[in-house]
């Protein structure tokens, strides 16, 4: 975990969460992490923001939902079905740990951060 990496700069490299360590899912999580607690983003807005197809985004969201990182709510706005997506507490924590681990890796490598 990130904490280990920070405590032992010369030790084993921090493990990166495989669920988030894929560019598309990392972008999903990074986008949702910007939302305030209690907010959800409409699926279509997220799709446009990320420039993904609906099918592609759905696949990644399912993987994130299976890991307990996102919460998906299907509802209606008038008669139109709308899907909302939010990061769970677990997802937010996983993203924070992933970011810390990436920074630790860069620090260990004498990187830019």
């Amino acid at each position, binding site marked *: 975990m990130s904490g280990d990496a920070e405590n032992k700069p010369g030790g084993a490299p921090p493990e990166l969460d495989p669920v988030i*360590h*894929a*560019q*598309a*899912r*990392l*972008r999903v999580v*990074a*986008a949702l*992490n*910007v*939302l*305030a*607690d*209690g*907010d*959800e*983003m*409409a699926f279509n*807005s*997220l799709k446009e*923001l*990320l420039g993904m197809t609906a099918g592609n985004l759905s696949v*990644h969201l399912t993987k994130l939902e299976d890991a307990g990182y996102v919460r998906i709510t299907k509802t209606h706005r008038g008669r139109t079905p709308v899907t*909302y997506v*939010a990061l769970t507490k677990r997802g937010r924590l996983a993203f924070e740990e992933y*970011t810390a681990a*990436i*920074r630790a*890796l*860069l620090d260990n*490598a004498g*990187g*830019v*951060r």
Partner: protein
Amino acid sequence: MVDDDERAPSPEEMLRVIEEQSHATVRLLQGDPRLLYVPWGVSWLLGFAALFLHYGLDGRSYLPISQMQAVSVLMGAMIVAGAVSAYGIVKMNKSVRGDTSARGAMYGYAWLAGMVLASLIAIRLGPMLPAAERGLLWAGGPLLVVALLYMLGGAIWLNWPMFFIGGWTAGVNALGVLLGPGPHALLTAVLLGGGFIAAGLWLWRRQRG
């Protein structure tokens, strides 16, 4: 199938992805400052410039333009500004639901309540005042609402530029009201009209940077 996204990129690349995606999301959620500030700036610049040309600094008109004509320019420009910024707000809010959008809706109703109340006060008290003072009531009252709601918006969303823009509006309005209708119109046209245009463009540039 392993798609293109599943390859393991370098930590630098991943950090860059995080930063870029976070910025893009903030841009989406904050809305386009060009739609939220610039239309108001343009409407005040045009409307209050027309009022200034009517009042003049010493009570003599610089152009043969009646108070009604100048007010019509201001009102017409403000209706256009309201429509453009409402479009910006709707575009900004349709992406998200939850506490933030509830806060935004309450804030929107506060604008409506403030503007209706300022107009009612001016409608009731305006006829009792001389023409120039009546104009000041119509201009200064709504600007009081604008100033307070921008400052309040800054407090709600912890948005310092918004808070300072509200404070700037309050200061310019206060000074103008003290100096009288001509100076009020001039100060509002230049410092608030020009100020909102400059602020909108500056915030937009900062958002993109």
